[in-house]
């Protein structure tokens, strides 16, 4: 039996990338795997970082700013009343919350999508060649275009599949490194999947493999990527979570798996299915 789950592996890797004093942005999430990727992993990662190297890091979960994230403070559900009553240091009006982006005060922001391309362009808008005649219409871009434009760094968490990691997205809901002229933010910085962690080569501005998860081969990554991805020679293996990290996650932060298996939503799930 494996010592850790995929959710735990990614949570620890995200937490290492949380910088002290910074504001980290997640949405409020909906349910299932989408919740785990966009909210569950980021929120546990922020709390883990606060306990370790980044005690002054904070996060913004929709209108709930700097929430308490310990097991005892987390509500059972994420319905409206639970969000309003979630113990936190501040709930600010929407215009101020969204203003945080433009003021450059958003550090690491989290995103997911139906498609991500080699430039880090994200798509949660629509699938099809013609915007006016979508083959598949998704709910909408929400704040993704804002965080991709303004956050200092963006961490994208998606399943590693050919139809997700594509050569070029059908619709750009979050701008990557293809053309960022005039955008103040840093854009996509990390792409994390069930197989690997990717970053962006500063010279080509395209996605490359940073580390491969234990048990995964370079060929598996090539086979499941929809473009010719750069895999540097001697690429490192993603480090396994330490016993202490696993203890903090399982005992202090998320014993009910409300975040990492989305039990806080009406649709519990696992990224390993």
């Amino acid at each position, binding site marked *: 039996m494996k010592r850790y789950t995929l959710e735990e592996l990614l949570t620890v890797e995200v937490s290492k990338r949380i910088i002290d004093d910074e504001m980290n942005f997640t949405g409020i999430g*909906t*349910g299932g795997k989408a919740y785990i990727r966009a909210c569950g992993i980021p929120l546990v990662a922020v709390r883990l970082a606060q306990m370790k190297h980044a005690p002054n890091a904070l996060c913004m979960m*929709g*209108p709930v700013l700097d929430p308490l994230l310990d097991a005892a403070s987390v509500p059972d559900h*994420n*319905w*409206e*009343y639970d*969000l*309003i009553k979630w113990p936190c240091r501040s*709930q*600010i*009006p*929407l*215009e101020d*919350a*969204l203003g945080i*982006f*433009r003021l450059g005060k958003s550090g690491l922001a989290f995103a997911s999508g139906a498609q991500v391309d080699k430039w880090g362009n994200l*798509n949660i*808008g629509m699938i099809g060649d013609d*915007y*006016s*005649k*979508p*083959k*598949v*219409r*998704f*709910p*909408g*871009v*929400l*704040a*993704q*275009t*804002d965080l*991709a*434009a*303004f956050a200092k760094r963006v961490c994208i968490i998606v399943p590693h599949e050919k139809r997700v990691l594509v050569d070029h997205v059908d*619709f*750009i*809901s*979050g*701008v990557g490194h*293809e*053309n*960022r*002229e*005039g*955008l*103040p933010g840093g854009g996509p910085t990390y792409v994390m999947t069930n197989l690997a962690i990717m970053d962006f080569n500063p010279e080509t501005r395209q996605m490359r493999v940073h580390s491969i998860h234990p048990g995964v081969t370079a060929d598996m990554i090539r086979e499941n990527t929809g473009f010719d991805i750069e895999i540097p020679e001697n690429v490192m293996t993603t480090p396994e979570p330490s016993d202490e990290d696993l203890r903090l996650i399982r005992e202090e932060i998320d014993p009910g798996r409300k975040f990492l298996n989305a039990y806080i*939503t*009406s*649709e519990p799930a696992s990224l390993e299915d």
Partner: protein
Amino acid sequence: MQERRSKLTSISDAVALIPDGAKVAIGGSLIRKAPMALVRELVRQKKKNLTLYSWSAGMDFDMLIGAGCAKEAWSSYCGMFNLGMAKNFRRAVEACECRFVDLSETCAMDKFRASAYGLTFAISKTPLHSGIMNNPEFKEITCPFTGEKYVAMEAFHPDFSIVHAHRADKYGNVQLDAVRMMDNEMDIYIAKCAKTTIMSVEEIVPEEEIIRTPTMTVLPKLFVDYVVHAPYGAHPNSCDCRYDFDLEHGEYYQKCSDTKEGFEQYLQEYVYGTTEEEYIEKVGGLENLEARLGRGGWES
């Protein structure tokens, strides 16, 4: 002294003011506090060719688009939050029966805010190089002071705004509970940017109560043209600390929405063949809703 004018009116009379082809801005966000009583009445009166504006839409857009009332819709989202996709919206947009214009959350906010501030357009860097620029309404401009590139976005100028709130007096002084979902604050701007603003409220209170609590009056009567009394008027949406989303009804709505025919039957059952009072009885009646969904602990 002359009697002051009461702005209190019936749901059907208020909605009858909205003609086919009108531009209608709708308050609420996701499946929270949309003015569903007014939305149902728009469907009941079989409005056509509406253009809809929202900050972040949910069942409100889905129902109006599914019922064939809208030709165009602008928002940062149209989905059912925890209940999944907005199926009628998706079906109609994929069939090109309704145009959807993508906006980010800040872009939608900026377009409402510009209007409520008396401006004709807003500027933003967000849409640069993004799919939002697929819409010809967005135009690049340059800052005359710094030379920075921006996108100009025309302010929303709805003919009507329909917004749900907690309480008001009959003169149209509208209040929100102090403890509320701060993601819904766009409602205050949405109410201020229309030619005509219709507010539905949970409670009508005497003017003395408004005078006792003036800091809660986020929309004094000069911004409000009509007030309708609609207890549980956001149902099945949630309404801040007053009541939760009706999960049971929401799931039924989603099941019916699997097909066009199923949704038509839903509308027959809950909208076309009912008045708003009958709708509330059909979903259990006020007492049952209060027992099932009410939190009873709101603070004023």
